[in-house]
């Protein structure tokens, strides 16, 4: 059985790739060094936690990429980035539901500036460079985990699929 940390990281990468492919035609995801944000100028962070773990998820990119590939207006770049990070975190949360995890999500925090980078004060972090048509973005997840946590799949707990509609 994979460790809980491995489950988190694998599902994070899967959520990232799936989300990008909702917006762009091609997406290559590769492991990168922590703090690697090229010369990005917009960053969004969303928190996710329950009693057994806490994670922070950060997404960085250049404004031009957010405008050209993710339909942001020039004034709405930070807001759009926040929503993308929100969707990335929500997608991860949905994937974790089959393990019985029901964490809480924060609202996004966004910063627009120049030469931004992200460093983590706690937990082990993983980082991915995502090459999409039109440029590059970086997604990182910092994870503090109860090391005794064991995750067992229960498909009956699966969340609704992204893009789906359900009437009550």
């Amino acid at each position, binding site marked *: 059985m994979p460790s809980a940390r491995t489950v988190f990281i694998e599902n994070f990468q899967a959520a990232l790739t799936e989300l990008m492919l909702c917006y762009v035609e091609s997406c290559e995801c590769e492991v990168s060094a922590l703090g690697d944000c090229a010369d990005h100028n917009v960053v969004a962070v969303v928190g996710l936690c329950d009693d057994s773990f806490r994670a922070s998820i950060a997404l960085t990119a250049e404004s031009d990429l957010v405008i050209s590939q993710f339909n942001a207006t020039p004034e709405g770049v930070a807001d759009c980035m926040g929503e993308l990070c929100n969707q990335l975190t929500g997608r991860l949360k949905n994937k974790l539901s089959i393990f019985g995890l029901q964490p809480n999500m924060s609202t996004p925090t966004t910063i627009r500036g120049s030469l931004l980078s992200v460093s983590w004060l706690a937990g082990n972090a993983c980082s991915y460079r995502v090459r999409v048509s039109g440029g590059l973005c970086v997604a990182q997840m910092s994870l503090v985990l109860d090391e005794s946590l064991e995750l067992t799949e229960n498909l009956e707990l699966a969340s609704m699929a*992204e893009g789906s509609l359900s009437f009550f």
Partner: protein
Amino acid sequence: MRVSNAAYDLERCFMSATILIVDDSESVRQQVGTVLAQVGFRVEHACDGLQGVEKINAGGIDCVICDVNMPNMNGVVMVETVKSKEQNKSLPIVMLTTEGSKELIQRAKQAGACGWIVKPFKAELLIAAIQKLTAKPQLA
């Protein structure tokens, strides 16, 4: 009172429905609003649950599209608050959120929401849902 209500209902039959979009992300409000406006709906915006409650209680809203995770008042609490008023019992509210957990969906259903869409949304699906929820009875 009865006559003026009937006149009001008749007038609204010939108007396009007004949809309130409640989301803390301006990008989402713009995207959803553009999609709905293109097919003739009138659109209003609120940036959190508190503002959503105010706009709904002010009247004139035919259907609500509401996010869940928002500052000040989240979407599920907004639905509970809105539905506690008799005048809003029949107002259709659809949740549009990144989350899809069964527990959360059940909470929203119990609060009085009538549907759930997991982001990112498909424009045609959203339009079909809102058209269905705002369809007016044919006049004889």
